[in-house]
């Protein structure tokens, strides 16, 4: 009887004696890579035996590198390439085989390998970042991956700066589920979850966000990069619906989106306008799109004139957009949305590219608009210079599972007490991850706020 060790020994003898040197090198390097990755996965808090399975290797390397998407693509492409090679070998034994099919499969396999390689380079770069090493290591990874894998995996000198292992966090698993009240006036947001599916994997982008915003309030939206600010705003205005109930002035936004979309002004971060149009033409076209048909041409013109006056654009009404200054362009971008006099006005970094004085003027104009009973939500990365103009602040933060969560919503003054910080920028710093230069206290505040809300609802 042939035992398993005997079979392995025979196979090894065969490989070493019969196979050509390239095959021997490929097999030995594959084994060394597995050994190296075994150590890396162990250091990163992942299951080390995943290193032994081809394709799963790439997947888990992506996770270890904090680049799961890239790892997934690399793994899928490697799997595709392998399947194609096997398919080619199988087809060769059948009557369906032809030279053309062989060439086609070969080309497809090479393409898949190429894509896999590109994505693997991205994963290597992520891994280098995790281990805090120089980027030139990527050359070594690319040429002889098993060598750096062995070094990083088994030498004590190389340690990851942070672990990719899932943190057993209380905050990530605690939800307040305290629904905000739905009133006739104002904006109520009860967002249970906002998910996205990538490569068949469900990802939570936002969870458990509940709030009520009063009419006439100007609200600051704070959060580190990737916390889900824009996703939250898109969910609020119904553009990218979430599993949520959003009610504005007693009407469900999602159910009545077609009617209510004109009652929401969303000013994107970039000044997305056509440079070939004049200021006046841009606003007239915006009016034609946004104002109801009941408005005559004269009424539309009058509204455009009015808005141009409000935003100080009358002197440049005949200028082409491409000729405007940064501040004028920003004001025009806001004016385009303001033309329909929306009840909910959302602005994504309206002060980007503006100096302090111009930014202040802009926010003062927004304050005036809010004072007319409108709700204004603003994202800005330099809030402290205009913080006196805001009523409330929403703080979004990523929990340990990288899901956007509500760390605070309420008046500005109470926010200072809640976070123990005087300045808004310090609040952002406190919730940012350590590797982003922050204090890494997001989970602490998410849990604290969830408990407060839970207590309130209880």
């Amino acid at each position, binding site marked *: 009887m042939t035992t398993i060790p005997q079979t392995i020994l025979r196979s090894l003898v065969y490989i070493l004696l019969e196979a050509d040197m390239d095959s021997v090198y490929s097999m030995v390097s594959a084994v060394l890579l597995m050994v190296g990755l075994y150590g890396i996965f162990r250091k990163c808090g992942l299951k080390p035996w995943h290193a032994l399975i081809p394709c799963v290797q790439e997947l888990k390397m992506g996770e270890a590198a904090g680049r799961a998407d890239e790892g997934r693509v690399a793994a899928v492409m490697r799997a595709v390439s392998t399947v194609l090679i096997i398919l080619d070998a199988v087809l060769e034994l059948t009557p369906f085989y032809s030279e053309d099919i062989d060439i086609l499969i070969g080309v497809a396999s090479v393409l898949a390998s190429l894509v896999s390689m590109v994505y693997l380079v991205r994963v290597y770069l992520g891994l280098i970042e995790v281990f805090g090493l120089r980027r030139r290591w990527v050359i070594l990874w690319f040429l002889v991956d098993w060598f750096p894998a062995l070094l990083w995996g088994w030498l004590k000198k190389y340690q990851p700066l942070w672990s990719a292992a899932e943190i057993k966090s209380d905050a990530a698993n605690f939800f307040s589920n305290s629904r905000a009240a739905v009133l006739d006036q104002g904006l109520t947001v009860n967002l249970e979850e906002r998910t996205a599916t990538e490569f068949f994997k469900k990802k939570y982008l936002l969870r458990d966000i509940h709030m009520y915003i009063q009419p006439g309030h100007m609200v600051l939206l704070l959060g580190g990069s990737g916390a889900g600010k824009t996703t939250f705003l898109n969910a609020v205005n119904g553009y990218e619906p979430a599993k949520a109930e959003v009610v504005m002035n007693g009407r469900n936004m999602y159910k009545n989106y077609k*009617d209510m979309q004109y009652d929401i002004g969303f000013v994107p971060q970039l000044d997305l306008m056509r440079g070939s149009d004049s200021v006046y033409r841009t606003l007239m076209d915006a009016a034609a799109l946004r104002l109801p048909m009941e408005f005559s041409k004269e009424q539309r013109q009058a509204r455009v004139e009015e808005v141009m006056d409000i935003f100080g654009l009358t002197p440049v009404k005949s200028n082409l957009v491409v000729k405007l200054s940064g501040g004028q362009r920003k004001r025009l971008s806001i004016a385009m949305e303001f033309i329909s006099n929306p009840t909910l006005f959302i602005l994504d970094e309206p002060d980007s590219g503006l100096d302090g004085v111009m930014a202040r003027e802009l926010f003062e104009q927004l304050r005036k608009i809010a004072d007319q009973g409108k709700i204004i939500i603003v994202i800005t990365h330099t809030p402290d210079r205009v913080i006196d103009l805001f009523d409330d602040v929403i703080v979004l933060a990523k929990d340990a599972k990288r899901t956007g969560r509500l760390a605070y919503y309420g008046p500005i003054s109470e926010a200072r007490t809640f976070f123990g910080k005087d300045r808004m920028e310090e609040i952002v710093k406190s919730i940012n991850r350590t590797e982003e230069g922050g204090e890494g206290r997001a989970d602490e505040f998410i849990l604290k706020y969830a408990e407060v809300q839970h207590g309130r609802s209880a």
Partner: protein
Amino acid sequence: MAEAREVASNRGRKIRRMRHRGRSSQVSIYLGKQLRFFINENDWKVLPMAAIIAALVGMVIRKRFFINMEGSLIGAFALTCVAIWNGCFNSIQAVCRERPIIKREHRSGMHITSYVAAHMIYQFLLCLAQTGLTIYVLMIMQVRFPEKGFITPFMPLDIGITMLLITYAADMMSLFLSSISHTTTGAMTIMPFALIFQLVFSGGVIPLPEWSQSLSDFTISNYGIKALASQSGYNERPMVTAWQTLEDMRDDEVGGDVTLGRILDILDSKPVQDRRDLVLIDSTWLDQTLDMEEGTDLPEEAADPSAGPEAGAADPSVSAETGEADAAAETVPVLTVGQLVDSLKEFPALQANRDRIFTLKAKVSDLFEMFGEENLKQLVQRKTAEANYKEEYEMSRTNIAGNWFVLGLYILFFALISVIALEFIDKDKR
């Protein structure tokens, strides 16, 4: 369509639903934007570019298009390339360069169908202007268009309609590529592949391997070339390449050493045997020759009544009895190929010298002279043209209209999938 009606809110209040601009009225807004873009953003540059390209192509095809088979095919291919090139460059960046703007405007109530419809109208006008310019430049370059058109009264108009359809179809294809591209760099990366596919797999000029021939059915260029080649009368023109090659060989010598036996063997070959009944000399020719050259002796074979049944029938005495009026009607063979072959094979002196070597050499120009250069030219051109006859280039209204119809379908298809692609613009990753 936008509607104006009263709807009940979820709290029981009556809220007036506002009526906003519908699809058709949004088209004018976006058409205006396109036209302003044409003026202010230098979109007009595609017009002189089209004229320059037409001039370059005109220089190449002007002496051959509508003249011969090869010229017609190359002209059709070249004009299709021009049209596809123009169309592709018109719109390849049209959508992707303003993709974030479209996304913003879509959020504000813009209908994608209106946006694409505006593009379709604007791009049609652009293609029309380019085609007009191209035809005008080709006429200036003295491309010899036949005066009378095949479908319309003027041939330039016929060709113009085809070129407009090709340009517009390529334009819509590019509009689609632009619609699925997120950046201008992405669009410009895809476009060469689309162009190469269109030109290589057109199935007109470049021979394709068998497995890939069906791919040409999916190219705009295939139908463009078919329509243009049909209109240029491809099948009606002579093919000149073979004759030109022969002409280039005019001073070359042909021939070599051959044995007499080999020559005699040729007499047994099937082509010769198939022509045994071919009359080499008939009684009428003989009479005329004898009349002209009195005193000339009759060939021995022809005079011998025992040479064969045909030879007997060709007895000149019989012909003489019937009188001159019936001479033409009673033409009888005097010498056939079969008779000649048989007599040569039975000739003992020839058989005895089978191994004798002859050196046969002649210049190609001597052969031209022997067979008559003009006759040979016409024969070669006609025969090669017949060998290259293509049914799909048949000059018929049905064929041309059929290709126009397919090009029209391409236009609608690409416009439709552009709309579908843009409807997903909200799913763009931020």
